[in-house]
């Protein structure tokens, strides 16, 4: 190890470090204060709840509505958007006539459930094993 190199690098680092060590501490203090402050803000963003049925969505089929997303601008400048279920990526599966699985995605569980309900009911010709075809 070339200690001369260490010295030079260290000197460069210290040029900034003296201020920044203190700065980091200050930032941490600021962060702590920020967190304390956030506790109050938290009430502005309601929890979506546990074990609740998915919320009903707008009439636009299978799409999310971005314009009505609740957005809060906080005093420190932080902007927060609260996303509803339609912004979740929901996965679906259907069994094709040959038994193969076809996966898909929808904007949220409600849309996924609606799409699955709309699929025509049909008799399952054969489920096991998966047949040979897959396009």
């Amino acid at each position: 190890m070339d200690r001369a190199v260490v010295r030079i690098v260290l000197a460069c680092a210290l040029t900034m470090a003296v201020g920044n060590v203190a700065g980091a501490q200050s930032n941490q203090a600021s962060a702590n204060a920020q967190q304390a402050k956030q506790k109050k803000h938290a009430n502005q963003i309601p929890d979506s709840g546990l074990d609740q049925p998915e919320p009903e969505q707008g009439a636009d089929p299978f799409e999310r509505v971005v314009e009505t997303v609740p957005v809060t601008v906080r005093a420190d400048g932080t902007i927060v958007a609260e996303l509803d279920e339609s912004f979740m990526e929901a996965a679906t599966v259907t069994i094709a006539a040959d038994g193969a699985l076809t996966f898909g995605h929808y904007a949220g569980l409600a849309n996924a459930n609606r799409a699955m309900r709309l699929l025509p009911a049909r008799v399952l010709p054969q489920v096991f094993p998966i047949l040979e075809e897959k396009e």
Partner: protein
Amino acid sequence: MMRGAFTAALTAALGLGVAAHARAGATVSIVNGNAAGLGFNDPAPRAPIGGNAGTTLGEQRLIAFQRAADLWGAAIDSAVPIRILATFDAQVCTATSATLGSAGSRFLYANFEKTGLYPGPVLMNTWHGGALADKRAGFEIDPFEADGVTPRADIRARFNSLLNGNPACLGGRQWYLGLDRNHGADIDLITVLLHEFSHGLGFQQFASVTTGAQIPSGAGVPLTDVFGVHIFDNTQQKYWNQMSDAERAASAKNPGAVVFDGTAVNAAVPLVLPGAPALFVTAPAAIAGTLAVGTASFGAKLTSAGVSSGVVVALDAANAAGPSTSDACTAITNTGAVAGRIALVDRGTCGFVVKVKNAQDAGAVGVIVADNVAGAVAGMGGFDLSITIPAVRITLANGNAIKAKLGASVLVSATIAINPAVHAGSDATGHALLYTPATVAPGSTISHWDTSAYPNQLMEPFNNDDLTHSVKPPEDLTLPLLGDIGWFADGDVDGLADSLDQCPASDRRSIVIVDGENTGVANPMFTNGCTIADLVLAEAAGAKNHGKFVSGVAHLLNVLRDAGIISGAEKGRIQSAAAHSSLP
């Protein structure tokens, strides 16, 4: 150069001496949101399966969820814990279709503050998913739920509890809760979770794909998101954050022309998406050429080097399992000819996995399945982890051409491999294609890779049987994408990206400890990502003997003292510890 030399020496030193400060990762925890007796708390007894030691349905679900969370936790770095509020509850499931589940970020943040060396927002006025925002802030931006007590979850995940073997739901198919990917005909929960959690971590853009409208800020100004700034339309020659709503809406249905442009993804594309699968017929000259193939969802993935050998028709008995002697539906009879060769078999009667397994059992090194009807090439479905050789499917016409030569006792040689001249999943400039079908599919469009990718990718809109639970190269592009949107690698979670960090494996203990001796001196971090302890250890790495090390530390501490970072007394304590140590 000096910085490089310093970093190299320091890294070497830390590698020798500070094993405890290895890659940190992230803590991703599952918050069980189910009520007693339901979902994750379902008491129905279950036998352990596929490495999942749970003994109830609920336990096994939770173990599988946590495994997926741990796989992500090992792949990304964050000093801030990531919480996934998860439930299993009843969603739609019929005999032939089902909603599997969903996940996503619960909150988006823009213009948030940061602490210490953490970089803060990727860009101002740009939405970040909650977990990503916390990582870049260096603290929980919103620590609690509305009750002011419960730690806030960053991601919400809801999965269908009805996939439990009930014949009325998907004909009895169910979640495979094993951890080993051996799901058979069932649906591998961990694969689906890895995919959905990835959306929650940020593999998602938030504008409407039908109108192009973006989520507005509180002032009504639409904001782009960290994913959208990387979406580039080759037709419009614009990124999504440069487009009008109408242009974004048009871009969302511009198949084969919209890519993700990010440094990490671009670098990974040649490794992860090396080209298109192909069959190279090398002899005889009359039929030599490159044939288009369909790929299999089982067996070995094709490589650039490929598998080369002579082609031999695999023969089996014509019987009830398969009326042809070339359908490979039963054990191969000409094993002496097939062993070490590429077996040619016909499509039909039995599943692809049966044919390929029989050929593998006969010693074939690869399999060509010739179609039994005219048409374009197509893929081969099925699942069997015991198949380890590659298999491809060719058209009826191409199969007949090969058989004609073999029938005339002409040697046919071929290579099953990747054709690097043809892009599969990337455009001509090597950028990974996003899924933008001509008809917009909300939920799928844009927020997934294009389905042309080979090998199949975790974040394609369709779950493929050949996925491996890997989220990073050489198998997968998901982790590079997350890196591009702001999930920078930070092995010591000090907030400074490893690429910028002169001490990427810092000793971040709060006190300077030299060779086990606690000096009681605070161990601050400098803007270059190094701590005092790192610098002391660097002296050890460069010293020829103990005396030189102690002398070097003395000089170092003088610099620190003169800069006002440590006091004279603190210098003495560190100096004393260095003298007592057995370093280097």
